[in-house]
């Protein structure tokens, strides 16, 4: 129980603090660099619209590229959507957020979430297999790629270990019969939260910056996003 108290208390807040500080540091690390003004005559001055178009449209590969990156692309969709369903649609997670912030939203049916867990689990394994066997991915991968994979997989695995924990409808158990699995799950999530701003998982916020900048530049030149 002490470990669970630690995971729910100091470890949680420390990880959130590291997340915020790390994110600010990483973003500042980009924006502190000098910006080069572009003096060319723009074809369009709707730079913000261009940035948003790129942010949204790049979520879907262009038609011409769909056949060449089928497995990598579709598998990435699976685990991204799967993780979103698990994090934001699972009742105990929503209850956890509600306890901390007062925010609540309707959960998805448990069956859908369990299905998403299974899909995500397999999909992440496929992603790892792909990274270990594809010559291109093997060449360009670094420690960050494998560690980040592990850091994402760990909460999923530990979370599945607490699935059989009984909880009352509408709320997560505040004092489960066996606190260890839940504590380990929370700690694994906190490890992810701590690592997120430092490794490639930071693409969760960096994607808006890189796509946005290219989108604005493309708008200037009149290039399709």
């Amino acid at each position, binding site marked *: 129980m002490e470990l669970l108290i630690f995971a729910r208390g100091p470890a949680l807040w420390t990880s959130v603090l590291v997340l915020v500080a790390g994110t600010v540091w990483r973003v500042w690390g980009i924006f502190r660099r000098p910006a080069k003004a572009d003096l060319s005559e723009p074809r369009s001055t709707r730079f913000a619209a261009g940035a948003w178009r790129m942010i949204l449209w790049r979520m879907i*590969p262009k038609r011409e590229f769909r056949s060449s990156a089928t497995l990598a692309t579709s598998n990435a969709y699976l685990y991204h959507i799967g993780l979103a369903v698990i994090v934001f649609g699972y009742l105990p997670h929503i209850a956890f957020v509600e306890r901390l912030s007062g925010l609540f939203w309707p959960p998805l049916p448990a069956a859908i979430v369990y299905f998403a867990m299974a899909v995500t689990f397999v999909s992440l394994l496929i992603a790892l297999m792909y990274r270990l066997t594809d010559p*291109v991915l093997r060449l360009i991968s670094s420690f960050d790629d494998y560690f980040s994979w592990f850091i994402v997989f760990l909460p999923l695995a530990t979370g599945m270990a607490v699935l059989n924990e009984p909880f009352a409808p509408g709320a997560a158990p505040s004092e489960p019969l066996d606190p260890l699995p839940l504590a380990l799950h929370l700690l694994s999530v906190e490890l992810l939260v701590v690592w997120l701003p430092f490794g490639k998982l930071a693409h969760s916020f960096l*994607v808006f*910056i*890189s796509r946005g900048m290219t*989108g604005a530049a493309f708008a200037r*030149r009149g290039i399709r996003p």
Partner: protein
Amino acid sequence: MTEVNEKHPLELDAPRFSVRKPQTRIDKQGTLDDRQRVRAALAGFARDFSRLTAAYMEACVHCGQCAEACHFYVTTRDPKYTPIWKLEPFKQVYSRQAGPFAWVFRTFNLKPDVTIGELEEWQELIYDSCTMCGRCTQICPMGIDIVSLIGMARHGMFEAGLVPHELWAVAVRAEREGSPLGATPKVLKERIEWLADEHEIEIPLDLASAEILVTLSSIEIMKYPQSIVALAKILNHLGASWTLRSDGYEATNFGMLSGNVQWQRDSSLKMIQAAIACGAKTLILPECGHAYGALRWQGANVYGKPLPFCVLHISEFLAENVRNGKIRLRPLGKSVTFHDPCQVSRCGGATRAPRDVLSGLGVELREMPSTGDVNWCCGGGGGVVTIHRADELRYKAFEIKMRQVEDTGAEVLASSCANCRQTFDDGQAHFKWDKTMQSLLELVAGNLV
């Protein structure tokens, strides 16, 4: 920088520069020792670590999708041709010197210093196997403009004197003589006189004042002079006030392609100053892809302020006049497939212009399966067509293009880039192919009403 390394002499008088045993060499220019070269490269890389560069360096998720967009990877399946891998030394230096966690990388040596061996190894990847076509940028899910980073990496490589000989030599020649192919102002004047006389056409040169300044590619001057005649025919037909200027005619920019920022600036400034000198309101760029990127999108930046005139690629100029009815054309009555020059279309945003011109020609346009801003490059851009040791690789990439053209079954193959045209001509000879690349400009000139 000194003359070309004597171990690998260039045959400067050959039709194309050539080097013996090209595949066995790593080229070096100048007399710097290895440590000095590494220092120069790092300093060159570091100068380009801007906000945009940082955003791109931080965002890569190593998904490897860019490989599938690169003709050199697709045709060889060699992972070293993965576009983002071509930037590995550049990324390494960024992480160690300029990234948000640079001090961690340095303190714990998590990213080792780039070595001369790595820079030498990457010469092929940064130059020979990248046409800077920008197709990788189009596939990147993080929106990283990989091609712009390759351009930056070339800056450091040039400063280190690690440029492929032939590309370096044409860049030197362009800086010294004003043209990479020996089309000096004297040669230009002689050619213009000859063309004007031969074709009985007025080609104004060095007028003190004109509405339009026309620029050329030295490939046109030396290899496709009929393009100059075609241009003159159209402009005279329109009754335009135009001129060529011997103090600013060369639109190719080998300073940019080789990675020398100062030479890039010098080339651009000649045209900019010539346009200002004659009071031109419009500067027309020739059928050349990278010339468009160099002046239309980078010209004002090297000039330091907005350009006081409008810059148009010739296909844009033609499209504008076809649309407003000033150019009327006889229907060609044939099927045509169009090869988009990457720097004009994908990287330049002028994808629609040539299609409007073709529409004016009344052709049956047969688009290739991957076309417009996602077209496959011909393999000769980015200076690659000058590099002999890259020939085999380039021919492999060209095979994609040949298949695409054949699949359309079109009677006419056209483009609006002299460099692409040269690459197609070379590929045609190599593969004994029966398709000859036509110039869009010449098609228009030949069908004026």
